[in-house]
């Protein structure tokens, strides 16, 4: 989809969900899907109005996991907020850490040594692979595959989580990045173990694709379903694999040039139709591109310090000002907006959650489809409630 095609006439209400008239036979059934639901990726509710099997209206309701992260951060120091960022998108704690560290480094103009940048890229791409694998596994599970692809994904994910544990001390709540670098240095045995894991990853993705990509049931249920138009996606603030599956070429790694991503050769997979199958394929291809980045980064990692010597850990008081820093997290654009008033605690700390923003057009995608497809479409958005509710 070229950029020129995205310009269109914008009549009033073009970016509102279509109004579907019920057929008039019988009453509308109002159904609450969730919050206790095996397929809603957490405590999440959808108020659905059904005409027979067709969805007439869908309103997402969340806030069940609201933990007040932004208010806690106003009362805690900048360093103390770092372990809380792990728990936002709890699948991808290292990318959350990086986004927050990036925002603070923008706020104070902090530089990061080269070795730390390489380590950040390696860990972020490992996080992306394990997140996409788990997300596809959950999507297929919601399709009824009872967990077999999920367990394949988890088998590989365990190897990556073991790497995280031996480096940072914890499998998921890593608390690893600091403002100006990383907390602990990687050792040579860790790099060897990482190389071994990365060597086995392409075979895993091949196996995964052999299991799933040509499966007729998957193709029948996913192709042509939950179509999202690119101009609506851009207007609704959708980011990440969902945006790229509609054909829009926007990857923050390539656009913002943050970190050292410019040194690595990787492509950005784009979809043609914007349906569920395209989102699935974009995630599979992104896994392959991440493996490529890892294969380039692991041999190139230079020696040096992992923390800027001028960085302060305790007694950190940025000068008054504000900054917005964002990265390409596996789920989309994760941004942190910080306002500092010169004290040890942030004055305003805001998380821009990709999962919440990607849910804006859930209604548009689900209207007119069956209830069974709602679960699939919702699964392809790939949300984590920790991020939606904070």
């Amino acid at each position, binding site marked *: 989809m070229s950029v020129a095609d995205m310009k269109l006439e914008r009549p009033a209400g073009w970016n509102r969900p279509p109004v579907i008239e019920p057929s008039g036979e019988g009453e509308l059934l109002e159904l609450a899907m969730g919050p206790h639901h095996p397929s809603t990726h957490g405590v999440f509710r959808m108020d659905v109005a059904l005409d027979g099997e067709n969805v007439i209206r869908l309103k997402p309701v969340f806030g069940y996991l609201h933990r007040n992260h932004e208010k806690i951060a106003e009362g805690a120091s900048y360093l103390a*907020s770092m372990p809380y960022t792990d728990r936002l998108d709890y699948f991808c704690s290292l990318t959350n850490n990086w986004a927050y560290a990036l925002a603070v480094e923008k706020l104070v103009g902090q530089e990061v040594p080269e070795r730390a940048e390489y380590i950040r890229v390696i860990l972020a791409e490992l996080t992306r692979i394990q997140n996409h694998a788990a997300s596809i596994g959950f999507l297929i599970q919601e399709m009824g595959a009872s967990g077999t692809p999920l367990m394949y994904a988890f088998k590989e994910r365990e190897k990556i989580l073991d790497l995280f*544990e*031996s480096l940072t001390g914890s499998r998921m709540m890593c608390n690893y990045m600091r403002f100006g670098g990383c*907390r602990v240095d990687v050792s040579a045995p860790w790099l060897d173990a990482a190389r071994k894991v990365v060597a086995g990853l392409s075979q895993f993705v091949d196996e995964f694709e052999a*299991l799933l990509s*040509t499966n007729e049931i998957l193709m029948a249920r996913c192709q042509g379903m939950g179509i999202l138009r690119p101009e609506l996606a851009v207007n609704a603030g959708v980011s990440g694999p969902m945006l790229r599956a509609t054909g829009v070429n926007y990857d923050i790694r390539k656009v913002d040039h943050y970190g050292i991503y410019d040194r690595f050769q990787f492509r950005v997979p784009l979809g043609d139709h914007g349906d569920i199958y395209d989102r699935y394929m974009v995630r599979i291809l992104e896994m392959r591109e991440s493996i490529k980045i890892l294969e380039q980064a692991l041999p190139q990692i230079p020696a040096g310090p992992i923390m800027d010597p001028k960085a302060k*850990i305790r007694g950190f008081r940025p000068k008054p000002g504000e900054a917005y820093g964002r990265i390409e997290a596996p789920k989309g654009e994760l941004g942190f907006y910080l306002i500092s008033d010169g004290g040890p605690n942030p004055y305003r700390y805001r998380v821009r959650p990709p999962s919440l923003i990607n849910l804006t057009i859930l209604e548009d995608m689900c209207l007119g489809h069956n209830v069974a497809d709602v679960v699939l479409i919702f699964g392809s958005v790939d949300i984590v409630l920790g991020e939606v509710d904070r």
Partner: protein
Amino acid sequence: MLEEALLGDGILKGMAETARNFFGSYVSKDRLTTVEYPEQRIPTAENARVFPFLVYDGADWEAGMRCVACQICEKECPPKCIYIEKSADKKPDYVGKAQFYPKRFDIDISVCMSCQICVEVCPFEAIKMDTQFELATTDRFGGLLYDRKELSRSNEYYHEIHPTEATEVDARLAEEKAKLEAKAKAAAEAAAAKAAAAATQPATPAKADSPAPAAPQPSPLSPTDPAKPAGGES
């Protein structure tokens, strides 16, 4: 989208994949990814962190506790799960200097989120992370509130669970102790030299007293004593 000879080809290919994994799990270790917990356990990584504990040197947990109740970990803890009360008196630490100690040191491990910030900011290597995670208890109120006795573990235990880290910490502490002893020795030599210089001066009635008390002073720390090996006392 793909040309198929047979409808259902893709499903059959997937089933072949599943069969390969299923039968392969009897043959190759790689394909069998689970262990039968709790009879079999996977050893935890060396760096694993679960909940904090207080390190003590030697055999007596009260006398050897490294914590000096500086309360930095209490201030930096994000969920504020540490509660410290300073003592009124002091006790000697590993170099012999008199330090405060915590009269009360409670950690509520139902609040603790294992972030390890307390370990990072402690200047005295007194609090480290344990690796035990099977800590479930049936006492809801207070069963997960650990006081300083339950939190204390010996330095030997620390060596068992985190050998590389513990050796590093010991080396660093020994180095600091050696530096302090060298400084004390140099100060004693300077004092002895000053006292000797004062003794050679013409004695006046006022100064007659001063060389005499100065003379016995250098002898316990005289330079002729053999140098004590670093880390010899523990």
